[in-house]
């Protein structure tokens, strides 16, 4: 296997069993290079979000194999996967999913506090930088549930970046953002891939967003359509 592969899946199959057995993902295999900005597109119901959850290790109910940074993740325990996600994966949900009781900066700090590699002061500084990067300098100490939808989404992105994960995954990370902020996030993602070699995999409906990425994979009815 090549050294510059960030993520690879082999023969990924997945079924939903309720209400009746239905194959969501059909025999999918592909690699993602380090520093690559990859977008996943496809109609709703095509299985792209489902696949992203499998790639993020948050869904272990699949057939096939998943490697990230050449570590085989298929078959690992919940706790091993949690520790792995903490260190190497940043995830941005379709909806922000912040802890409403916590301030924006506290939300951003959480994964780093869990990782426990840096002092609390350092983490706080990093979190503040991340929030500033996303234009939320003034909102840092506001309670998460006092922020607007777009602001919350950007806090969630800042949170995903805090541990400098090797892969950042997003399920329509810019879905709730206006065009100005979408462009801003896109630029940040681009920079992360170019300057720091971080890999980005994002599900999107945004044609422009997809076109400007390094590579686009299209799914239809659970099958890989194009991989350019």
């Amino acid at each position, binding site marked *: 296997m090549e050294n510059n592969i960030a993520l690879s899946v082999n023969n990924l199959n997945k079924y939903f069993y309720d209400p009746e057995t239905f194959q969501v993902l059909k025999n999918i295999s592909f690699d993602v290079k380090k520093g690559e900005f990859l977008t996943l597109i496809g109609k709703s119901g095509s299985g792209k979000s489902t696949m992203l959850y499998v790639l993020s290790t948050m869904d272990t109910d699949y057939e096939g194999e998943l490697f990230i940074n050449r570590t085989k993740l298929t078959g690992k325990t919940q706790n091993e996967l949690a520790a792995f996600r903490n260190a190497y994966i940043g995830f941005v949900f379709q909806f922000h999913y912040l*802890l409403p009781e916590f301030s924006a900066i506290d939300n951003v700090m959480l994964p780093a506090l*869990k990782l426990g590699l840096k002092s609390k002061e350092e983490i706080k500084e990093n979190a503040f930088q991340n929030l500033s990067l996303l234009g939320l300098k003034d909102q840092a100490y506001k309670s998460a549930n006092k922020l607007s939808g777009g602001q919350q989404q950007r806090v969630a992105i800042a949170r995903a970046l805090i541990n400098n994960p090797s892969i950042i995954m997003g399920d329509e990370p810019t879905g709730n953002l206006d065009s100005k902020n979408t462009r801003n996030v896109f630029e940040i993602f681009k920079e992360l891939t170019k300057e720091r070699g971080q890999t980005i995999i994002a599900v999107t409906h945004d044609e422009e967003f997809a076109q400007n990425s390094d590579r686009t994979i299209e799914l239809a009815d659970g099958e890989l359509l194009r991989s350019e």
Partner: protein
Amino acid sequence: MMTGNTNSKIAFAHLTSRLRQTLVATMSVTFGISMYIFMNGFMNGVNNIQADLSFSTMAHIRVYNDLPEDRTNLLKQHTNPDQVINIRNAKVIQYTDGIKNSEKILDRLKKQPEITGVTPQVNINVFYRNGAIKINGVLSGIEVDSEDRLFKTSTFVQQGSWNDLSYRTDGTIIGAGLAKKMSLKLNDNLVVSTADGVTKSFRIIGIFKTTIAGVDNTKAYIKINSARQLLSENSSFVTDVQVNIRDYSKAREVADKLASSIPYKVEAWQVANGQMEATTELRNILAMAVSMTILIVAGFGIYNIMNMTVNEKIREIAILKAMGFEGNDIVQIFLLQSLVIGIIGGTAGIVFGFLISTAVNHIPFQVATLQTLPMTFYLKDYTLSFIFGMLTTFIAGYLPAKKASTIDPVIIIRG
């Protein structure tokens, strides 16, 4: 360490963000614990009162000289087939009444560690007379101090004073029913005559009422020496030795143990009162059933509320897992919440339970010798209920958190 802090911060945020729900959960713990304390205190109080009433005239163990064995079939002993034997109108010609050398036995009994009180009695079947009225009854010669220690007899004296008996050799304290039947009042004279034909007059210096009609209608107390005089016996003669032990339910075992070293009949209260033993046992079973029921009902209440609390936070659990929080972190977060709810609810429950118990203990209830409703305040009930409350809260927090910590986060997120 870092994660521990973070976890407790999250736990605290959960507790404070939904104060109303935290309050409801805490209150369910408080309610369960205080109900347990109150019900147990009340049940035990009622049980104790019933035991007290029963043992107000009866000791746990009675030592006395039993009638000789059944000798109606004297031919049974006869083995020589060459002799012809004819027995007519058999009678016992030698039988010692009562216990002659009581000092030794009293000493021996007082040395037993499980025995809390011993009192000697000289009980005589007599006829009470006042003019034409003649009533059959029991005249009880007693030691004033030790009798009171065993039976709290002084608390039943309505007129006069129990202690007066100790310096009035001609004094007697009689049952209220007996006094009424014989139209006697304080300071009147009561004439008693024994089976042997001795007659003596006593001055009534007190009237008692135990509310047990069988006793109140037939019993009179005199000093033990006066009773000995009536029977022309010496100063170590007694008819009964009444013994109280630490735990009345163990009377049978203690009696069996004593029987080997005492040459008289040693009888536990259960032997003489089968029906009372049955009611006592049933009361204990009932108390246990009530106590268990409360535990189960309260336990389910606490469990439900805690379960709800965890389930409302299940989406956040999934997010935390997505960010890399492990199963142990999730369990820790919810156990911390359980702990806080358990400690606050438990402490409040103990205080509240004590207050309810104290209040009920002050409700007037003037029946028999009672003044207010009975109640016990056993440390055991309070500790047990607290431990139980903590345990239930803990389990109720642990189980759903454990379950949530082992499934894929996506299952929760997808809904």
